[in-house]
């Protein structure tokens, strides 16, 4: 079980670096984050990463579906899915392996930004607790978007369709708490709870709340489950 997931994960992770994809993604991500971090860092004159954590989910909105769009859609287009699913492995192992590979790539991107606060740690008093919380939130938000992207990749054999579909779903999740005033009462609070930005803003402040963690884990689980079901739909009669 774990062996199969690991084999698939390794293969997918390597293939990110066999093509320019990973390098482009990492470079662009670092450039964007660097720009958002430093553009007002010295103006605000505060040693924190609020700016970075606030903007990163919006950068992920584009990057997460870009990382995942290839994972299943390309297998379907090239026909390699036929070899993969006739091997003695479960569909859930395929999905988890691919998700993990995307997760590692994203984690590398996120961890590379650690150099920004590290290089500036002498210039002020960083609150490393809140930075840790922020990073945790960033990675969880990333996971959540990756699972959405993987799900949309499993629906189509066209990478562009997978990207756009993933983007639209993520965009909806991000936007839900911006339109709350249209939905008063209970519906409003449901939408607020479902919105990613509501939970990510909590974590961006450095508050690690179990409610937010549960939210993230259930979103990731939900979309990965959908992706597995989409793979299994092949076997429906």
């Amino acid at each position, binding site marked *: 079980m774990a*062996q*199969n997931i690991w*084999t*698939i994960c390794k*293969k997918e992770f*390597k*293939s990110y670096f*066999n*093509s320019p994809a990973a390098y482009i993604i990492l470079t662009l991500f670092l450039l964007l984050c660097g720009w958002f971090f430093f553009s007002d860092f010295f103006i605000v004159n505060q040693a924190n990463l609020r700016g970075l954590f606030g903007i990163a989910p919006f950068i992920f909105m584009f990057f997460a579906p870009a990382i995942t769009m290839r994972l299943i859609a390309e297998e379907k287009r*090239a*026909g*390699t899915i*036929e*070899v993969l*699913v*006739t*091997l*003695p*492995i*479960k569909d859930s192992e395929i999905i988890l392996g691919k998700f993990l590979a995307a997760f590692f790539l994203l984690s590398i991107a996120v961890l590379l930004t650690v150099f920004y606060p590290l290089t500036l740690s002498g210039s002020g008093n960083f609150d490393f607790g809140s930075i840790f919380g922020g990073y945790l939130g960033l990675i969880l938000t990333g996971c959540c978007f990756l699972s959405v992207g993987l799900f949309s990749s499993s629906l189509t054999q066209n990478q562009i369709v997978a990207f756009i579909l993933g983007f639209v779903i993520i965009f909806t999740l991000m936007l839900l708490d911006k339109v709350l005033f249209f939905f008063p009462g209970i519906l409003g609070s449901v939408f607020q709870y479902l919105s990613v930005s509501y939970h990510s803003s909590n974590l961006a402040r450095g508050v690690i709340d179990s409610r937010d963690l549960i939210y993230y884990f259930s979103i990731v689980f939900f979309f990965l489950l959908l992706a597995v079901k989409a793979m299994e739909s*092949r*076997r*429906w*009669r």
Partner: protein
Amino acid sequence: MIKVKNLTKKYGELKAVDNVSFEVKTGEVLGFLGPNGAGKTTTMRVITCYMPSTSGTVEIDGQNIIDHSLDIRKKIGYLPENAPLYPDMNVVDYLYFILGLREVSKTLYQKRLKEIIEICGLGSVTHKDIGELSKGFRQRVGLAQAMIHQPEILILDEPTLGLDPNQIVEIRNLIKDLGKEKTVILSTHILPEVEATCDRVLIINEGKIVADGTPEQLQSGFEGKERIYLEIKSQEDVSNKLKNLPEVEQVEVISSDDDQIKKLNIECKKGVDLREKIFNFSVENKWIILEMKREVKRLEDIFRLLTQSN
């Protein structure tokens, strides 16, 4: 043993496979023959658990493929049509990847890899990216993928597609060797391939089985008449005289040119060998036989007969 019972697969309204039943014994090499779109690939996809049938069952060693999908997939090596592969991986990495997902113990990796590279003739391309390989090499990598875990059952969809004549002979011999202990199902529309490799042939047309038997059985079953090709040098009216021979049913003149060479097709009842009589008759008449050949109805003709009429 593979048991396929009343297998039907519909794509929307289209019946790709229509109520097909057959059995494959262990150690048998079964050839699926049929024109494009006859349902060969679909049948294979059902057997390999890639997609389910609309109705009907497939059992392998008594296990239903839907209930025991994982166990059955362990036993099968499958080469899909066109050998789909990852172009950005190199050959060795790809084979390691497949080994990792097959239940092969790690201590055997090196041995299996060496063997399969040897068998499939991949020695010269082990560290090349698959995307850079020619069609023939890709097909061989696909074969290596299907055989690397030494499966009991091999299902090969057009295994010799895109190979050059030398490689085709190698692969056919390989399949024949494997077929001694293993069950092999292969599909093709190259007829000599079936004659060269298969113990049994299934001809499929429009989703239905139209013929089932050994290549020899099929040939003998469909020979309506014996046919002899004859080339004779003589000035006489050869064809009319031959027609008067008791067992000759029909004489067809293919060509007769001025320098007295006459080319003829002689037909007679099945099971009768007229060659001796024709020879003696010619000697009596002092005709000179330049060529005489008994023509065997080939699988090709049978195939056309069965699949073209509809």
